[in-house]
């Protein structure tokens, strides 16, 4: 079970992770894009952490909706609408709930991914954040279905996300700014997949 209080801690830890990896994400982006991913993600989640101080509700849906709207209005670029939409879709599943059980978490994750697919018009295997998120979702779902604790399930998801990020190195980008590079994007890991991996890792780290 994830309570509202724990959920806020998860989101704040994502912020800490983004701050720690600001440079890494920016450097990954510089290789194939425009060198702003780390800056924007850090800025967005710093704003989320600040905004969450004002949310007095235990409603997980409310917390996630605040997160979504803050990301949409501070991140910009492609990551703002994509992550914003993901959190917004998850918030709809969590609406009115003061605790998130395993089944709800799987559903939230699923809806979040659907949101990204819809907004970004992308699929797995196109060198995007989905290449980390979809394997993570599948690992999480499988683990929970096997009866694992949430913390273990998120650890397995982190591992799957990390593998997904590695795989992005071998893909020619066809989505996002890296797509303009075509073959030159080979050899570079995707910054969006990397920030997604960091997010999953932050969740896993918080649940331990």
């Amino acid at each position, binding site marked *: 079970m994830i309570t509202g209080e724990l959920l806020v801690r998860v989101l704040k830890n994502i912020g800490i992770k983004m701050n720690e990896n600001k440079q890494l994400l*920016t450097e990954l982006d*510089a*290789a*194939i*894009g*425009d*060198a*702003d991913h780390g*800056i*924007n993600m850090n*800025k967005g989640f710093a704003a989320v952490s600040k905004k969450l101080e004002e949310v007095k509700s235990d409603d997980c849906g409310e917390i996630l909706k605040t997160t979504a709207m803050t990301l*949409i*209005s*501070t*991140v*910009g*670029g*492609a*990551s*703002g*609408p*994509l992550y914003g939409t993901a959190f917004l879709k998850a918030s709809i599943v969590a609406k009115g709930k003061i605790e998130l059980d395993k089944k709800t978490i799987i559903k939230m994750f699923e809806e979040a991914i659907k949101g990204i697919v819809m*907004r*970004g018009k992308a699929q797995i295997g196109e060198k995007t954040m989905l290449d980390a998120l979809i394997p993570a979702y599948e690992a999480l779902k499988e683990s929970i279905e096997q009866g694992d604790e949430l913390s273990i399930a998120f650890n397995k998801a982190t591992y799957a996300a990390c593998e997904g990020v590695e795989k992005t190195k071998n893909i020619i980008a*066809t*989505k*996002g*700014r890296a*797509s*303009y*590079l*075509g073959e*030159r994007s080979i050899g570079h890991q995707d910054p969006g997949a990397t920030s997604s991996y960091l997010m999953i890792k932050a969740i896993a780290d918080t649940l331990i």
Partner: protein
Amino acid sequence: MKKIINNPENVVNEMLEGIVKAYPEYVKRVEGFDVLVRANLKEKVTLVSGGGSGHEPSHGGFVGEGMLDGAIAGEVFTSPTPDQVFEAIKAVDQGKGVLLVIKNYTGDVMNFEMAMELADAEGIKVESVVVNDDVAVENSTYTTGRRGIAGTIFVHKIAGAAAEKGLKLDEVKRIAEKVIKNVRSMGMALTPCTIPAVGKPGFELPEDEMEIGLGIHGEPGTHRDKIKNAREIVTHLMDKILADIQINENEEVVVLVNGLGGTPLMELYIANNEVDKILKEKGIKTYKTIVGNYMTSIEMAGFSISILKLDDELKELLDEKADTPAFKQI
């Protein structure tokens, strides 16, 4: 990093303040937002454009009579957020509809689309066009298509003139799309640029090399090469541009030789001289030539060439009056 700034976090805000103080007769700021709107809005279809900052004078510099009515400045090289775009739409809407001019970058397209959804929900009539003039990028294999770069200026100018003449939204959109269909661009760079918040150059380029076909955000180009002279560089870019669009002998074009921010006008004029020679050799007529910094990439040294094929309609609108801080035509 050597830059005349205060705090990297405040560059966009302070730049906008500076623009408003320089051109109060042209633009005013929407309070609390990174949005500039025309000081004297007219009852007509309105045009909104924008994108990341760092491309000055794009986009705020083109707000004024005959061009844009609103411009949104995102963070440096980052597309603006939907709420900012939505504010711009609301601020300029005169009830006759708003046309959004978007450059084809995933982030821009998504954020502008979300803003359109917000505007639709409020009952504001909004349409959009996506500029994709950069021939450096193949558009057959890659579904996101090509980038939008300096050719966007022609969309602002010509669609802006159409709106100023009182044409309806669907007509203004049709004309904007016609410009997009007929404009091709390609650029190159000699040096990288530094995003203030990053503090170091986006990429490294050896002293004797140049990057061909790169985008306006310092994102890597199609390839690198040993630096060549102006004639060879221009020939390469023009070959790519003219291979992509059919322009027959005696047809007319307008040429834009656009500096990326760090290249002296002297070099842009030299490049333009080569462009002109190539067009003459092919029997293509240059109706008008524009040389200068219009769509820059902070202090990147380099330039792009844009060629717009004209017909009578586009020519007439091109000739209409424009009075903006960065583009004036009597």
